[in-house]
């Protein structure tokens, strides 16, 4: 086999209380896609940050083309031909799409000034290459989470690099964009680039990766060719035990309508949204990225004003003007963008979980810390949260564990309708089953769940009914018995 372009030897990185990386190794080969696999908190993103000069490793060697290098800052990584798409969105909301793409490698004109005309043209080309339909001149904040993510791909591709790192690139994308991404990955691979691909989804690992490397609790477990292993082998390496990977849907008795939405419209984001939600039901919302699902959910939660339409909750008119109104009436929303909308990163885990229900946990104005801890511990255990302690700041958790905190936070309020936007995005395979099981328990207790998901297996596996949205409108509805993957995907693409 040819020589690796990038080799890591005995890399370690310790944070207070956690050994995130414990003398791990990794090789990346030109023209090959290497999957990096591990549970939430296994140290994958930490490795990416070491490789891109954001964290200095405590020890170990990084070799590029057999020569040792040091990474002091993100600019060093760029110099060594490494570009990365990070797990969390590290972009600039107030800058335009073009400015974001070229933030660290601009084109200049003959006067040494930035050549925006050329960069706008290149941005357009890059976005077309990625098949992303966004205007390069608008501020990034106007884009959806997924589109922002796609812009970060364009940024990574704008520099010529021999090593491309993608940390859970498909987490916020839906079927169509994922196919596009595969195409892109294959094209980069064929151009001879070495690719590190981090993912929790085994179907995609088997589809596009050539090699694998597995980490468990910050330690290297093994690596090899993907053709020589099965999914069960990989899962066993990841967790060191066997786990139930799929949680079968429980049959629940579905009761009366708890919420009904009629003709809900917004001036520019969605129109004519009609549906009923029944007791004990999981209602799935599927659609391509940017179909307007999250916007509808935000309107239900009182975050976005609507222009017309009416809603009823528990038989009473429901017109939330703020999220507070919605929570008071028993409707909660777990947003998709957990970094910005979901958690207070600088507060500890337990306070994040109990934040929405502090009223219930305090006695004559003082917070009952012991009970706060109990509630937090219960949800942390049920969601298999991995953290050094419950007083750790959420900021310091791995991406997947941050998600679990946000989910726990809203579930702990005992709502009667819960809207979850991409509930298992970025969550590892074992915990995913736990989240699904948990949702099953909730509906069994008589709650109703609206689940927005871009993952077809999740929608088909969990939902009692599915509503498919396309360009801000409802395109199709399916009952559990007549759902097929083809029909759902076709409806979502508007065909």
């Amino acid at each position, binding site marked *: 086999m040819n020589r690796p372009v990038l080799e890591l030897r005995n890399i370690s990185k310790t944070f207070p209380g956690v050994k995130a990386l414990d003398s791990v190794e990794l090789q990346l080969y030109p023209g090959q896609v290497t999957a990096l696999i591990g549970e939430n908190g296994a140290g994958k993103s930490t490795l990416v940050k070491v490789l*891109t*000069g*954001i964290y200095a490793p405590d020890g170990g060697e990084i070799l590029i083309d057999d020569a040792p290098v040091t990474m002091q*800052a*993100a*600019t060093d*990584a*760029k110099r060594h031909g490494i570009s990365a798409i*990070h797990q969390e*969105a*590290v*972009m*600039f*909301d*107030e*800058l335009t799409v073009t*400015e974001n793409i070229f*933030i*660290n490698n*601009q084109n200049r004109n003959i006067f040494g*000034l*930035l050549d*925006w005309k050329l960069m706008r043209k290149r941005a357009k080309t890059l976005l077309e290459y990625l098949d992303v*339909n966004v205007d390069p001149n608008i*501020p990034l*904040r*106007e*884009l*959806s989470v997924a589109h922002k993510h796609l812009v970060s791909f364009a940024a990574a591709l704008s520099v010529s690099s021999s090593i491309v790192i993608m940390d859970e690139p498909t987490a916020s994308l839906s079927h169509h964009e994922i196919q596009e991404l595969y195409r892109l990955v294959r094209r980069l691979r064929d151009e001879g680039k070495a690719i590190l691909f981090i993912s929790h989804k085994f179907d995609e690992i088997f589809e596009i990766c050539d090699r694998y490397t597995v980490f468990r609790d910050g330690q290297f477990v093994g690596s090899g060719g993907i053709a020589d292993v099965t999914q069960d082998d990989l899962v066993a390496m990841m967790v060191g035990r066997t786990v139930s990977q799929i949680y079968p849907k429980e049959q629940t008795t579905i009761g009366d309508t708890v919420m009904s939405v009629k003709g809900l419209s*917004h*001036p*520019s*984001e*969605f*129109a004519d949204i009609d549906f009923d939600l029944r007791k004990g039901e999981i209602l799935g919302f599927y659609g391509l990225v*940017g*179909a*307007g699902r999250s*916007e509808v959910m935000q309107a239900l939660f009182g975050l*976005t004003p609507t222009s017309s339409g009416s809603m009823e909750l528990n038989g009473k008119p429901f017109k939330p003007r703020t999220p507070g109104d919605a929570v008071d009436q028993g409707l909660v929303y777990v947003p998709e963008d957990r970094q910005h909308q979901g958690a207070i990163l600088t507060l500890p885990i337990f306070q994040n979980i109990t934040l929405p229900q502090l009223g219930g946990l305090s006695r004559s104005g003082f917070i009952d810390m012991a009970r706060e801890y109990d509630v937090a511990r219960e949800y942390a255990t049920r969601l298999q949260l991995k953290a050094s302690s419950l007083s750790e700041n959420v900021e310091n958790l791995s991406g997947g564990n941050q998600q679990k905190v946000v989910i726990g936070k809203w579930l702990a309020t005992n709502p009667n309708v819960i809207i979850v936007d991409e509930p298992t995005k970025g969550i590892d395979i074992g915990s995913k089953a736990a989240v699904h099981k948990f949702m099953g328990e909730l509906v069994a207790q008589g709650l109703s769940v609206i689940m927005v998901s871009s993952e077809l297996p999740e929608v088909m596996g969990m939902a009692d009914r599915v509503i498919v949205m396309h*360009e*801000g*409108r409802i395109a199709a509805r399916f009952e559990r018995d007549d759902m097929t993957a083809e029909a759902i995907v076709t409806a979502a693409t508007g065909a």
Partner: protein
Amino acid sequence: MKNTSLLGKMISHREWLLGAIIVLMLMGVGYIAPFFVTPGNLAEAFDDTSILIMLACAQMLVILTRCIDLSVASNIALTGMCVALFNVAYPDTPALVTLILSIGIGIVLGAFNGILVWLVGIPSIVVTLGTMSVYRGFVFLISGGEWVNAHEMTPQFLALPRATFLDLTVLSWIAIAVTLALFVFTRFTKTGLSIFAVGGNPKAAVYSGINVGKYQFITFCISGAVAGMCGYLWVSRYAVAYVEVAVAFELQVVAACVIGGISIAGGIGTIWGAALGAIFLGLIKNALPVIGISPFWQLAISGLVIVLAVIINSRSEKCGGRRILREAHQ
């Protein structure tokens, strides 16, 4: 379907809104006191506002990086006193050399703030509150509390800002040049873009290989350079240097930025906004006495406008959406 009303558009394009208000005010004042809007008088009012415009544009850069420079007024006083004393000691110095000297002194004072923010890691508000007093204290030390008066300054020293060219004073031309230069700097240089990035999302800046502290340092140097230059221009224009020169002027500078739509949270703002914010304040200051409103009202009105600007700022940050349906209709 369009979701942006005219008002919404105006609010999201702060500069236009502010520009329109300024024009309306000029028309109003012109109606009551026609001589106010004669070219000669307008040029005079602009000359009077020039220093505020330059300082506001430079301050904007600092604010963009999530910092603030409260020491600019003291920098003016200290640099102004330095060059005035220098002029007394070396009367033959050409005005241009004095100008360059003032910029140099200003940079040193700005860089000192910048170093404390970047390498020592002290919050800028603390640093510049400190240097605000320190620099003003130095003015007293080097002058012994004495004034440098007009008759001690050489004609060359006094002439530079007052000389006129195409009906505008050199001071006005300098303000225009500085504003244009800073516009080009913010829009067309890597450093300018990085300054927006640093304030917009410091974490993402690190991930993009942008050294947050270094760019904060750079903005303090620019703010210092402009303040230093203004120190000479101020002392020369008013033909006097003393300890209390430009006391509390930093508040007007920050106010001009806020009125101009510069977000105190960093990362948002334009040079035009800052310049128009300064012009707006200058207009109030120059127009109110003309239409017979007492200076006390001036303060109250400026204050009200600042509060209003903050409200509009926070509103406009909430605007914006994705317009899925419109895309679909095309």
